[in-house]
C-alpha cells in the first residue's frame, strides 16, 4: 500500500528510457549484457547512487546541495590520512571514520542552519561550502598522495561477495534505508510537503526548519560516506576524489524525474536517472565509439532521455522551469 502511495504511477518515462538504452546497447554492444559488464556498471554506479540518495531529499524539498563534491573530497583525504597510510603514522579506522563522517555532518549542519535560519538560498550556501570544503581538502593534502595500507579497510572495495564488492552492498543498504525514510517517516513525507507547499506545512504546525536542517545533514553525511568508500576504492586519500560527481548526481536526479522545483520524484526516480547516465557511459565504451564523440553522444542521449522521460507529463498549460 505504501508503495502505491509514493510511487507516482504517472511518470514511468525515465524507467522506459533506461530499459530502452539497455536494450539498445545489448543489441549493439558486443558484450554489454555480459554479467561482468553489468557488475562493472553497478560498481561504478554505487558511489553516485549513495550521493544521490541524500541529494534527493534536498531536491524534493525544493532546495539544492552543491557542496557534495567538496564534502566527498574532504572526507576522502581525511580517511586517507587517518587509516594506516604511506605519509604518516596514524592507523585507526575508527578515528578516520569519525573525522570523515564528522566533517560531512558538521558542514551539512552548517548548510542546513544557514539555509533554514539565515534564509540564504541553498544554492548559495552550498556553493560556498563546496569551495570551502575543497579548500580544506587541499590544505590537508600532504606533500604526497597518501597510499592506504590498511588491508582490512581496503577489503571493503576489494573483497567480493557473490561477485559484488562491499561498496555495492553499502550502497544497497543506504538506498533501502533511504527508501524507508522517504516513505515511512515524518522527515521523508514532510519533505514532500515542504516541496509542495511550505507555508501550509508551517501552518500545520510542522517543524519545517528542523526537517530542512535534517536533510542537509543527511546529504552531508552521505557525501562523506561516498568519500570514505572512494578512498577504499582508489586505495589512496585523494583531495580531488569528488571532482565530477556533482553534475552526474544532479542530472541523474533531474533526468530520473525528481524535479528541482521540489515535491516530485524520489529516490527510486533519482536512481533511475543515475543508472541511465552510467549505462550511457559504459554502453558507449562497449560499442566503442570514437572517444572524442563520446561526449556528443552522451549529451544527445541525455536530451532524448529527458524528453522521453517527461513525454507523458506533457499537457497544455503545464509549466516546466
Amino acid at each position: 500500500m505504501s508503495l502505491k502511495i509514493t510511487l507516482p504511477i504517472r511518470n514511468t518515462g525515465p524507467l522506459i528510457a533506461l530499459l530502452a538504452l539497455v536494450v539498445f546497447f545489448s543489441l549493439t554492444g558486443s558484450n554489454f549484457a555480459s554479467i561482468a559488464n553489468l557488475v562493472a556498471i553497478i560498481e561504478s554506479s554505487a558511489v553516485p547512487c549513495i550521493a544521490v540518495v541524500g541529494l534527493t531529499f534536498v531536491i524534493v524539498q525544493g532546495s539544492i546541495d552543491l557542496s557534495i563534491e567538496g564534502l566527498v573530497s574532504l572526507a576522502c583525504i581525511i580517511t586517507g590520512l587517518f587509516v594506516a597510510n604511506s605519509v604518516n603514522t596514524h592507523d585507526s579506522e575508527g578515528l578516520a571514520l569519525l573525522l570523515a563522517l564528522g566533517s560531512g555532518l558538521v558542514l551539512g549542519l552548517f548548510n542546513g542552519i544557514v539555509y533554514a535560519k539565515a534564509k540564504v538560498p541553498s544554492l548559495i550556501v552550498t556553493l560556498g561550502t563546496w569551495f570551502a570544503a575543497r579548500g580544506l581538502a587541499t590544505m590537508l593534502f600532504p606533500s604526497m598522495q597518501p597510499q592506504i595500507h590498511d588491508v582490512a579497510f581496503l577489503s571493503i572495495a576489494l573483497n567480493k561477495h557473490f561477485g559484488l564488492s562491499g561498496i555495492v552492498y553499502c550502497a544497497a543498504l543506504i538506498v533501502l534505508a533511504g527508501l524507508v525514510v522517504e516513505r515511512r517517516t515524518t522527515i521523508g513525507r514532510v519533505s514532500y510537503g515542504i516541496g509542495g507547499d511550505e507555508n501550509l506545512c508551517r501552518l500545520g504546525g510542522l517543524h519545517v526548519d528542523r526537517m530542512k536542517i535534517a536533510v542537509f545533514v543527511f546529504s552531508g553525511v552521505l557525501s562523506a560516506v561516498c568519500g570514505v568508500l572512494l578512498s577504499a576504492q582508489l586505495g589512496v586519500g585523494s583531495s580531488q576524489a569528488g571532482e565530477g560527481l556533482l553534475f552526474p548526481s544532479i542530472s541523474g536526479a533531474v533526468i530520473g524525474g525528481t524535479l528541482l522545483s521540489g515535491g516530485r520524484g524520489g529516490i527510486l526516480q533519482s536512481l533511475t536517472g543515475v543508472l541511465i547516465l552510467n549505462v550511457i557511459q559504459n554502453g558507449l565504451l562497449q560499442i566503442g565509439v570514437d572517444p572524442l564523440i563520446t561526449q556528443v553522444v552522451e549529451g544527445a542521449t541525455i536530451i532524448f532521455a529527458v524528453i522521453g522521460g517527461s513525454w507523458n507529463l506533457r499537457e497544455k498549460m503545464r509549466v516546466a522551469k
Partner: protein
Amino acid sequence: MRLNELPIGKREAALQNRRDLKHGQGRLAWRRFAPALVLAVMLAVVGAISPGALSAGSLVSFSIDAAPLLLLVLGSSLPILLGGIDLSAAAMASISGVVISLAAPQLGSWSIPLAVVLAGLVGAAQGYVHAKYQVPSFAISLGTLGLLSGVALFVTKATALPVDSGLRVLDVLNGSFFGIPACVYLVAVVWLLLSLTLRYLRLGRHIYAIGTAERAARMSGIDSLKVRVIVFSICSMCAALAGVLYVSQTMFSSPTLAQTMLLPAIVGVVLGGTSISGGIGGVGVSVIGGISAAFLRVGSVVVGLPPTSQDLVYGVVILVAVTATIDRRKMGLVK
C-alpha cells in the same frame, strides 16, 4: 474602451506616480545598492592591501579579463530571470571560438557574425525543445553542454587552433579608445541593450511575468514558448560574444577555452542579487555581481593569499556577501 471623461489628468497621474514611488520604494532603496556595496568593500580591502591593484593599468587589464565573464553573466541572467537556467553558456563560448578559428581563413572577420548567429540558432533550438516538450531547462541545457563541448573537441581533433590575426575585428577589440579597452565598450553596449529591453520592450515585461508566475502570465496572453526561445537564443549569443572576446585575448581557440566559466557566471548572476527562483533582479545588477565575482578571484591572488586558502576565502566571501545582501522580503519562500 472609455466609459466617460477621464476623472484624472495625465499630469496628476504622473505626479501621484512619483509620490507613490518615493513612498513605496524608499524602504527597499538600499537593497538595490547592496551588491554595489559588496563590490565597494572588496575594492576597498584589496586596495588597502596592495594599492597597485587599483592602478589604472591593473584596472584596464582587469576589465579586459572580466569582459568575457560579464557577457556570460549578462546572458545567463535572462534564463535565470525566467526561473530556468542555461548551463550550456560557457560551452557555447568555447565552441564559438572554435567556429571562428575554423571559418576565419575563408570568411575573415565575417566568421564572427557567423559564430554569433550560429550560437543564436542553437540557443533558440534549445529554448524551443525546452518549452515545447516541457523539459526542465536544467536538464536540456546540461545535454547541450555535453553536446557542444563534445562537438568542439571532435571538430578540432582536440587541439588549440591559432586564429590568424588577419581578423580586423579582433584587432579592434584588442585596441582601446580613450584609454578604455574596446571590449569594455562591447560589454557596455550589450548591457545597455539588455537593460533597455527588460525595461521598455514587451519581451522584458514578459520575462518578469513568466519568472514570477508563468501560469498566470500565460493566462494573460503571454506566449511563453516564444519568450523562452528568444531568451535562450539571446543568452547563447551573449555567450558567443564572450567566446569572441576570449579568442581576441588569446588569439587561439580551444575546445575547452571557456569551459571553467560556467560556475563563475552563475555566481556573478547571484551576487548581482538576481533570485535563482526567477522574477526578481535584472541585468543592471547582474553586471555588478559579475564584476564582484571576477574581482574576488583576482583580488585574492593580488593580495597574496596563500593558494590553499583561496578556495576557502572565495566560498566564505560569497556566502557572507549574499547572506548580507539578499532581499528576503521580496523573495517570499527561500529555496
